[in-house]
């Protein structure tokens, strides 16, 4: 087991500086993921980070583990193969809102349905940043993007609800303003034996904020601070007061059998049966 006493060892420092724009929230999320890994005491040798395609998915290149930067939308499929082939590995998936909610949406549903022990962290910057600012499934209704120049006609989407309904046994949401909460949610996701989904709301001042006149990065962080309400606090609030707010915190935590464990039990059962046959 390779333990680490210094969080810097979790980074490939020689690959820095990163490619993200000034003011991008992705670095904060990567930091939160690393802190969660570090504080959870995961064995670095037994931890694999998988990503798809997009701004957020470039994170794997900077992280010092076995890392896999896959095809657009497909990170969860590769991660499923890794986890099923080697259940002893901790598998963390870093993905974006386009990667996970659009092109990869079906894989999210089915991995959640199987409750396979993956930890999916979805960076939600509300936009396709790498291609220059097209709307994604997570772009709120009415917002401007290069492909919604008259305002987004599509409805605002709650992907945490989707993950929960599809069968994820752990679901959380935080933001790049609420970093300690984000770290805690990711730690709980790692701890959960089953499919865990954490939505990390990020900021993209360049390709999203600018077009929608949301101000610079500090201003966008302030917006997150003012509009996020913890789910526990929300339970005691009047619906009126929650009108233009969104919820953060632990959205769901349930118990369900985990897929690779069921498969290993099947193998054990079949192989025990085979031994009997020989006798």
């Amino acid at each position, binding site marked *: 087991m*390779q333990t680490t006493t210094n969080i810097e060892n979790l980074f*490939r420092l020689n*690959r820095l500086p990163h490619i993200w724009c000034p003011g991008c929230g992705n670095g904060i999320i990567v930091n939160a993921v690393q802190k969660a890994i570090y504080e959870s005491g995961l064995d*670095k*040798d*037994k931890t*694999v980070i*998988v990503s798809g395609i997009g701004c957020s998915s470039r994170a*794997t*290149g900077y992280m*010092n*583990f*076995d*890392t*896999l*930067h*896959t*095809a657009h939308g*497909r990170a969860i*499929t*590769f*991660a*499923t*193969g*890794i986890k*099923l*082939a*080697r259940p*002893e*590995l901790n598998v963390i998936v870093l993905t974006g809102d386009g990667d996970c909610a659009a092109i990869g949406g*079906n*894989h999210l*549903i*089915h991995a959640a349905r199987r409750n396979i022990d993956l930890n999916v962290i979805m960076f939600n910057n509300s936009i396709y940043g790498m291609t220059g600012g097209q709307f994604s499934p997570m772009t709120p209704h009415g917002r401007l993007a290069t492909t919604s120049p008259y305002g987004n006609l599509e409805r605002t989407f709650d992907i945490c609800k989707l993950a929960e309904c599809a069968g994820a046994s752990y679901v959380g949401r935080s933001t790049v303003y609420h970093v300690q909460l984000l770290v805690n949610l990711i730690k709980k996701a790692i701890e959960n034996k089953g499919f865990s989904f954490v939505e990390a709301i990020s900021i993209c001042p360049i390709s999203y904020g600018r077009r929608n006149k949301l101000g610079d990065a500090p201003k966008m962080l302030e917006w997150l601070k003012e509009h996020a309400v913890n789910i526990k606090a929300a339970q005691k609030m009047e619906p009126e007061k929650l009108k233009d707010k969104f919820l953060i915190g632990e959205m769901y935590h349930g118990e369900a059998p985990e897929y690779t464990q069921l*498969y290993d039990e*099947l*193998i054990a059962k*079949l*192989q025990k049966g*085979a031994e009997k046959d020989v006798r």
Partner: protein
Amino acid sequence: MKTKRNAQLLQGNQACSLGALDAGVRFYAGYPITPSTEIAEFMAEELPKVGGKFIQMEDEIAGIGAVVGAALTGTKALTATSGPGFSLMQEIIGFAAMTEVPCVIVNVQRMGPSTGGPTSPAQADIMQARWGTHGDHPVIALSPGSVLEAYTLTIKAVNFSEKYRVPVIFLLDEVIGHLREKVVLPELNELEIIDRKRPTVSPEQYKPYAVDESGIPAMADFGQGYHWHVTGLNHDETGGPTGKADVINQQLSRLFHKLDQYRDEITLYQTFDVEDAEYLLISFGCSTRSSLAAVELLRNEGIKVGLLQLQTIWPFPDHVIKDFTKNKKGVFVVEMNDGQLCLEVERTIGNRDLLSRINKINGELITPQEIIDKVKEVAL
């Protein structure tokens, strides 16, 4: 003692599955599709018995994604599909080629394009097997002409993918996939099984895409402490992305040509009655069988015909084609498509006048009589 090695009646898809197991495949991910489904069914039943893993994914893209993921952990992995699913897999087949992850994709060919004829045979994915994914890339494609070959060549396919770190396309067709034949499988201890080369250096010294004279980099299993990066982006020998033109050129030149020095061992074929042949049939897969029947019947009539059966389709065996077509009065390419393999033969021999196409695209097998008629048209 009776073993499964005794003579038995086996279906082509089953023989392929057995070959995969005997070659050491311990992971299967895929999506049901006719006429390949028996492979998934076999794997679902047999893999857990030997400690392997089967998973039915939500689509074929997920199937090949999971296979590549499993392969990165050091597990031999395979998926099976047919035309529409094979089309869906193309992007990740390119990923496997680019990142040099060993895996086998069985494509039990059916009629296309589109849904085409799900239960009808065709051999029309020859070019897709070679060029289905975007960009230049190395690939190996094998095609069996019998149930026994479905077994033996699947083992070759797994071995090739491991040794050369390439995706290998296994081009079955509906006829061979669903054909039942009596076969006697070779004993397990007679089989040559190849495992990928692993690094012998420490993780600190490991460069995932650095090569020796073999041209094939050593591959660490995920989970062994090597902490390496795998990306479909252009990358340097550390595995990290690069935009440097000279590095990209060096890496891609090696990638595109890494199979060149192994051409002879990758090229598999069989010949029938070629020694004194004046006319040559070139075929593969199920059409080999009609061709072989035609050779026998034509020879009974005194027409000296031979048959070259290609088992390796890609890389295209130019040298074999050149050798066997030398001094022939006529060459006939027999295939269930509109002339895909024939394009390569034509390119190789450069003499159109020598060539005749024998094609069928209606989902029915090419009959020996159809081949006989065409040969006679030219020969008499």
